[in-house]
């Protein structure tokens, strides 16, 4: 599991969870999350190291140059990411009722 759950990491996880089977290019993830390459690639690297993402060789580019890489959520990654995103959502949800103060008399 990543050491710190940052807003940027959550953005990436949410984008990946929108379609867990989808294979993403780094560029597509950049467009989807609006993160810069300087932010996105360290996150992807962390997720790959933690086994949440698999990094695969992609197709050859049109000009015959080196192939691009694809990122896809692993089974473990999908479950863990869903848990993290859900926990963060729950933590952010505002309390609907203020809990009663200890010792206070009910009206």
């Amino acid at each position: 599991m990543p050491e710190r759950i940052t807003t940027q990491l959550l953005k990436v996880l949410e984008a990946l969870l929108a379609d867990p089977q989808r294979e993403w290019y780094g560029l597509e993830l950049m467009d989807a999350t609006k993160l810069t390459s300087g932010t996105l690639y360290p996150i992807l690297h962390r997720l790959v190291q933690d086994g949440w993402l698999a990094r695969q060789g992609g197709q050859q580019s049109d000009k015959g140059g080196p192939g691009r890489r694809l990122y896809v959520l692993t089974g473990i990654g999908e479950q863990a990411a869903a848990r993290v995103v859900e926990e963060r959502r729950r933590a952010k949800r505002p309390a609907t009722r203020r809990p009663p103060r200890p010792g206070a008399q009910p009206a």
Partner: protein
Amino acid sequence: MTALLLVFTALLVTALTGLAKTILTGEIRGTLSDRCHRRVDRAARLLPPDLADDLTVEWHAELTALEDADRLVSACRFARTLPRAAAHIGDPPPLRARLKGSAPARWVSGGIAALSSRSQSLEEHVFRVTLAMFVVGLGLTTTSIVGFTLSGRINPALALGISFGVLSTAFFVLRASLRSSRDSRRRRRAAADAARDLAGRIGHR
């Protein structure tokens, strides 16, 4: 005759301006593309050796994809923050890693890539100067010939001949320079690719 000259000059100017614009746009695109790829090479030097080759290949490929999709501004934006990504991924900091002598293959890779891709060649500089002279010359020639013709100081047929001669000579010089500049750029890219291959082979040994 004067009207014919004006029409001809206008057509010539339109065509040559279009041509110059196309060449200029191509040149700017080439320069930006080179700069982006150089930035990837620089970022690669900040990566740990076990990741450098793989990530460099990926980043070059993403850049090429953006260029193919005509998204040059996005390509520049993509390349701009790559050194930061590389610095984050490459932990411990690369300078310390280099001082400890832990990555000799990267020294070779970085050094050769820097040598092969850093500076522009003489041909490319010559092309730029020629292009600038061509654009300025085109403007001056057209203005002076049209001005002299309208004021009656010069025979329209002579003006037509002079303008045609000047502009066609300038065009051929520009074309030759463009070819030479393109060849030079191609050679520089090939040298950078060879440097990457060599560094990869050294790294795998």
